[in-house]
């Protein structure tokens, strides 16, 4: 029954979008995080999505084929900002600290996009549920 699968598929999408929003929340929280070396500086996290196209990628028997999952969490590639702040206790010998590469504007956009996608999938589930209920009513016709 294909209508059942919609719940599984949209469910995987809700899960993925929520992970994406969690990553955004973590990025925003760390927008001002400083570090003593460039290597240790916080880098914005991005959830990378992957389609569940193969039966083997899914849990045994679960109707999630065609859904989406998080393939991995990637670091944003842009370099951390080097700030001259000799009084900072974290400053290196030249007086620099390294600010995280999080861009607040990008994160807000990311958050809104994730919220919209989440809403879309909730609507998909709602419609599928209504159609399912109507299909059950066929016996009362």
């Amino acid at each position, binding site marked *: 029954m294909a209508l059942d699968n919609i719940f599984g598929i949209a469910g995987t999408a809700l899960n993925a979008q929520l992970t994406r929003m969690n990553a955004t929340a973590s990025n925003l929280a760390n927008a001002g995080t400083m570090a003593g070396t460039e290597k240790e500086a916080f880098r914005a996290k991005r959830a990378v999505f992957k389609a569940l196209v193969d039966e083997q990628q899914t849990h045994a028997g679960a109707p999630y084929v065609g859904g989406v999952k998080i393939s991995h969490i990637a670091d944003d590639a842009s370099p951390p900002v080097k700030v001259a702040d000799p009084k900072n206790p974290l400053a290196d010998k030249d007086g620099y600290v390294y600010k995280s590469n999080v861009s607040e504007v990008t994160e807000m956009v990311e958050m809104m996009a994730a919220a919209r996608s989440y809403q*879309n999938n909730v609507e998909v589930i709602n419609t599928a549920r209504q159609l399912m209920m109507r299909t059950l009513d066929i016996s009362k016709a």
Partner: protein
Amino acid sequence: MNLLDQSLGIHEQALQIKARRLEVLAQNIANADTPNYKARDIDFKAVFNATQNVDTAMQATNSGHFAAGQTLNPDGMRFRTPFNIAFDGNTVEMTVEQAHYGKAAGDYQATLNFLENRVSGIRKAIRGE
């Protein structure tokens, strides 16, 4: 018995294909942000014709066989031609998918209405009203 089998007409298969189409569209919406995902859709006509084709249906070669439900043809899946492709290679256009999903839900309900009419007709015949 034959009368009951056939009384639902083409709507039984049509409902299955339309439910399948809703699933495919749900997959597109779920993968709206997946890099390199290509949006797909079902060619209703192709699937329906394949379902109607007797060769693909199970044959009852013995009078003791139950009438076998016809399975849906897996073909008929087509990639959607997008208006614009996203930078990450994704071809899902949310507005297009939303419109298709809404229409598919309407189509499904239309088929349901036809089926309801058939069922109520059978019911009337059984009750002898």
